[in-house]
């Protein structure tokens, strides 16, 4: 009898263990499935977050020589960078003619820009004076939860002494633009005060294929004096 009970107990235990084992396997499979589902949800969440990031690129004019760059600039100035902010700006302009005309009823012309205030130190071209404070905008920046990435913009660091080729607009409060982010910003090195005519200014963008010298700037000034600016 004792042997029978022992055998029965062992048999019951084996059956129980077997049943548990089968159930565990089922739970484990379910758990794997559940884990995968959770992972997908996490990925979706990450995706939703990343979807808030926007990258922006633009097709800018390229100039073959400094003279062309100068011709297209409304202002060529040596400046000191005062500060920086991000701002959402409506850049729509009244079309000059029917070729530019379109129905802007639903057109969103707001863009996030990084805006720098700059103080004019020297004027080579344009209707501005030494001491004037101008604003320059470059597309891209961070505002609240919106991040607009622009790999092409050049950083205008507060305190920098720069020579900029600008295009300004006849719109109240509209910041000017660099002619392009590659060829329009140069570091003015005051230490090279000898002012050798052929002293080259360092471009802020290493991809710049133009060389700007102090002689170029002097020539631009002379040309504008002749033109009576």
């Amino acid at each position, binding site marked *: 009898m004792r042997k029978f009970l022992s055998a029965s107990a062992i048999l019951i235990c084996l059956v129980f263990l077997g049943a548990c084992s089968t159930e565990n396997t089922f739970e484990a499979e379910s758990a794997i499935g559940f884990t995968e589902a959770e992972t997908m949800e996490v990925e979706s969440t990450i995706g939703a977050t990343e979807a808030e990031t*926007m990258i*922006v690129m*633009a*097709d800018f*004019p390229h100039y073959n020589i400094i003279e062309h760059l100068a011709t297209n600039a409304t202002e060529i100035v040596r400046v000191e960078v005062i500060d920086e902010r991000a701002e959402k700006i409506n*850049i729509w302009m009244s079309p000059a003619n029917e070729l530019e005309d379109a129905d802007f009823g639903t057109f*969103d012309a707001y863009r996030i820009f990084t805006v720098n205030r700059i103080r004019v130190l020297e004027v080579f071209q344009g209707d501005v004076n030494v001491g004037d404070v101008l604003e320059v905008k470059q597309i891209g920046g961070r505002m609240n939860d919106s991040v607009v990435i622009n790999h092409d913009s050049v950083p205008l660091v507060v305190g920098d002494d720069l020579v900029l080729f600008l295009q300004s607009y006849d719109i109240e409060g509209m910041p000017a633009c660099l002619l392009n982010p*590659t060829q329009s910003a140069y570091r003015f090195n005051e230490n090279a005060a000898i002012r050798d005519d052929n002293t080259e200014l360092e471009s802020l963008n290493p991809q710049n294929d133009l060389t700007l010298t102090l002689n170029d700037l002097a020539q631009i000034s002379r040309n504008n004096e002749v033109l009576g600016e």
Partner: protein
Amino acid sequence: MKITKKALLLLATIMSLLMLSNTVFANDIINYTDDETTYFSDEISYICDEVSYAFDEINYIDDEPSETEFANTEYESIVPLTNVTITLNPNGGSVSPTSILRSIGSTFGTGGSLPTPTRSGRVFIAWFDTSAITGGTRVHNNTIVPASGMRTLFARWTDPVRHLGYWWPSANANTTNVPLRFSPQPPSGWQTPMNNAMSNWNTRDTPINFATNSNSTNIVSVGSLAATWYGEISIFYSGSNINEFSVNLNSRTITNDATNLGNFITSVFAHELGHAIGLVDNPVASADGSIMNHSRNRNTLTIPTAYDVTSVNILYSRN
């Protein structure tokens, strides 16, 4: 110096003529100053040198070098060598032909454009005078063949995957449909060149197919903007997928700078569409070597180039 009988006979003849000449000269210089006499002496010396030179020449002819000696003799051509062979080194790729004949002073493109080599998984940038991956001088069809150097041109290659790291997911490996919607409708005269930009991509051998769709959230617009760019695109992405984009063409700058307005519009829109499918700006290619190059001539370059096509196909895994 070896003197042969023939040479001695010729020498005697020359010397006789020379003595006769000297007699005439001597009579003529009786009244000359010392300086002029010196000059005359120099002349005589020069004539003697000439005789000596002629003597050497005679000896050389008489000796008649053997075939081996002739073959080993180095001669300086008195006629300028104008034709040179340019070897084309595909630098890991393949090219045909592997050499071309060009004239010094003409351009490398004279007689036929430089061939475009191919290399699996890479994009040809240009021919250079060095095999290095940077530096050297780029050789164009209009580069002048110099008197020396540039006898071997090396193909320079680049990683073709010049892209954002984001692309459109595709349900079909052979076709990636990219819908878009014009909103608002472009100004009069702009729609056709913008449609051409889409066609120019669609007819190239890539999986990309742009098509208008009134329900698309990818918006294309045209506007007069207080910005210096010709075109601009904003792309929303998540992970490696492009989710949505909006393109704007700046009618103000395009109208101001275009000499061929239709082509200019097509070029700018094709450039932005390149961004829309994941390409980035391409300053590496030659000016007109890529629709993604800012220095391209927008009045003429309206079709995505072989460089662009290869880049897209690698991005979308067809190569």
